């Protein structure tokens, strides 16, 4: 049988389903007993939910000629991270938002740039001299900031849903939820993996064990159309294992209830429905808060000139 489907995501974002046939099969073990792969949690009153996300942007590439003649790479860039706070009966609002500008150099020696037109860069260095290492460091910094904010909000009583996997949630004693939009590899054994596409909107798979610290499950957050791709509207969520299975189950049930309500709107978001409305809006807001990229680049260029003049003086 040949059948055709249409992917809702804008092609420039790639496909949310990147699992190929040549990849190894998944081997994750289910953590909870269930009849089949579909669990439909009973509707519940969700707790106030905080959606956390971050954006980052390299705004200029720098080079430093070391005394030994080696070329060390650096980058100027910025990241922002923040949250949208959703409470029943209230208009969602932007929660705390923080932005940071950094100048990151490889080779272990930080270079301080003078402030220009209100642009200031925190100087930092990493040991690696790999060409893309500074940009990676920017990404890492953003992830750490996201993790910190998620933990802080969870501590304040919010159901914290962070965009992306839980790599940087350091404290495992807070029920922070990670939300993954893109599927890179099969996690479940083939037979179970196939059944994921059978989820209905508002249903989840049973929890399965992910590594030694997380539980995870797939959730469908939107009703597919007749020509939607098989994995349309399916996201994966992660929770820490540290609280035990019961807490994990309660948390993912709650999240499964909450997410469909916030599913992204196709004409508003190129990654709908997986990119949730609060997250899509937050990304835009964060980019706005970083300011125009060209102006930041201009400031960095001036700062590099100034730095050279100061050093010469």
């Amino acid at each position: 049988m040949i059948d055709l489907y249409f992917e809702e995501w804008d092609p420039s974002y790639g496909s949310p389903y990147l699992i190929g046939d040549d990849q190894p099969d998944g081997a994750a073990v289910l953590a909870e007993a269930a009849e089949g792969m579909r669990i439909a949690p009973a509707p519940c009153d969700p707790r106030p939910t905080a959606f956390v996300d971050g954006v980052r942007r390299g705004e200029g590439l720098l080079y430093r000629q070391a005394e030994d003649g080696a070329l060390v790479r650096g980058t100027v860039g910025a990241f922002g991270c923040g949250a949208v706070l959703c409470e029943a009966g209230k208009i969602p609002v932007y929660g705390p938002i923080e932005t940071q500008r950094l100048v990151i150099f490889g080779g272990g020696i930080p270079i301080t740039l003078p402030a220009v037109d209100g642009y200031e860069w925190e100087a930092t260095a990493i040991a690696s001299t790999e060409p893309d290492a500074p940009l990676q460091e920017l990404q890492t910094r953003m992830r750490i900031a996201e993790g910190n904010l998620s933990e802080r909000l969870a501590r304040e009583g919010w159901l914290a849903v962070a965009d992306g996997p839980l790599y940087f949630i350091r404290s495992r004693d807070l029920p922070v939820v990670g939300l993954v939009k893109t599927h890179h590899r099969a996690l479940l054994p083939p037979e179970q993996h196939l059944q994921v596409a059978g989820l209905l909107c508002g249903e989840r798979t049973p929890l399965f064990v992910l590594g030694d610290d997380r539980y995870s499950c797939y959730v469908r957050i939107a009703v597919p159309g007749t020509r939607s791709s098989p994995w349309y509207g399916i996201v994966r969520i992660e929770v820490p294992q540290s609280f035990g299975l019961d807490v994990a189950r309660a948390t993912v049930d709650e999240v499964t209830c909450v997410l469909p309500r916030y599913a992204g709107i196709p004409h508003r978001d190129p990654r709908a429905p997986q990119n949730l409305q609060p997250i899509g809006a937050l990304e835009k807001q964060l980019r706005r808060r970083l300011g125009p990229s060209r102006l930041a680049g201009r400031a960095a260029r001036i700062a590099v000139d100034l730095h050279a003049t100061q050093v010469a003086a």
Partner: protein
Amino acid sequence: MTDLGRRLGAIDGAADINTRRFSVVLDDEATVQLDELVVSRQTLPSGEEVAHYGIVTEQTGRIEGAELPSDTRHIALSQTMPGQTSRCAEISVLRTDPELWVAPNPGGLVEQARGEDRDKALFLDQMDGGRLAIGYDQEQLPIYGDFSFMNGVQGGHVSISGISGVAAKTSYALFLLYMILETSQGRALLGPASTQTRALVFNVKGEDLLHLDKPHRSLDETRRAQWAAVGVTDPAPFGSVDFFVPPAPGGEEGEQLVSSAQSRPEAVIYGWTPERFIRDGLLRFCLTDSDDRSTQIGFVEQVVRAELARHAYPLENEPGAVVICAEPHSKSRTFERIIGTRPAARPAGAGQVVRSFYDLLDVLDARLDPDDLQNWAGRTQPGTVMAFLRRVMALAPRLGHLIRLGVQPVEMHRAVTVVDIHSLHESAQRFVVGALVSRVFDEKQGTGREPLRFVMLDELNKYAPRDGHGPLRDLFVDIAERGRSLGVLLIGCQQAAGRVAEPVVRQPALKICGRLDSTEAAEYKFLTAELRERATRFLPGTMICSQPRISVPVPLRFPFPSYATNTGDAQLTDQERASGEAAFDAL
């Protein structure tokens, strides 16, 4: 002491700012209304402090982040998308102090202008020629006009526009007169000449203005507070008013005059005796239709006017009447020279006696006979002469009753002289206005600016229309252009400024608008686009005032009249009430 204004927000840096306008992003807890005055201060790189004073002209709001109308639903109704509501107020700059041509600072703080700031915003510190409260704002704080732009020193005349019924043009004009003539504020500004200052007020609608000397029966405490806002603690009716009404038309010749006013029987019945009519050359105000001036009729009128004056002698023992004799008493044909001397009285037998307008018509009929070689019109085309005669005759039923014996001349003995013209035909209205205003103007030639003469007239477009020519239009254009230095100040009202002779609506220093007709609003270039649009929605009592000191027109309100502006408004005296009750009982 400066009364500090609340902070309203910061100047929007996302929109362009210039020296004339800017936008304020309002704080969440701030509320402002249109027309509120604001101030923003900045320190220039040179270290100099500059304050921008402005007025709120419009307000806008949006949910930031909402890009499509349906986003609003997701944000406000289903509450799944975040949004940030931002409200902005648009500000027109009134003043930059000190006067530096710089724009306000984006991001700069904006506060309400209170106390000294409000005074500065409204240029009160620069009103050296004295200031007169010309209304109050929404917070019942007075708005002042620079009196030197009202008394002719730096400017003069007031032009009031707005559609009939809701614009309250007459009410505002009366309020201004009241402030000038009846309040201590106004009298102080008029100075020593205040007791000789006069206002000529034409009543054009009903018998409305024939009761200005009576208190308004609906003046209550709230309305008194409005007067207090303009600094008047004891609002009262006009204190010094004379009323003149035309005689009722018709009736036998020689019968006693009957007043045309129902509600003011004791008002003086005005008119012109034939002698006054001839010697004042009032024939020129008889033919004022625009088509009268496009033909040779104007020339005939000029000739006839002079000839009448040359041949008219006072009638013995009958003051006001004249006798038209064959031989002229002056060799000159220049009107001004002819009336330079008054000839000796002659008996009735000396010629044709003129006691009324109808007698005058008989004279003209005889003297303009083309077959008579001595006829006044000389070699003018007989057709033109006949056309002239026909027109003058057509006027008889319209204004004939005003030219007769026994009527009183309108004399301005009191502060306000109300002349009723509402019951007259339009030609007669133009005649009366022309005759009286030209006299006021002539009397002031060469006597200096003070004491001032105010002339209040509604429906100016009837007297000084935008198009055409005529003695009346020329008179008003002349007053508009020269009147201020002569101390003749026009308080003119019209429904549509676009229909009034251009100098008459351009010259006035004080331009006031009430509710405007939306088809007409484009005419008012001195208003901002926002105000023009808004002025089509004004409720009665709200006006916009444009004055030379303040670069942007400022909306204002004015108090409820303390004087009757309508027959029914007048508070009855005890005596009137008693006589009314007695009449009712008698039934």
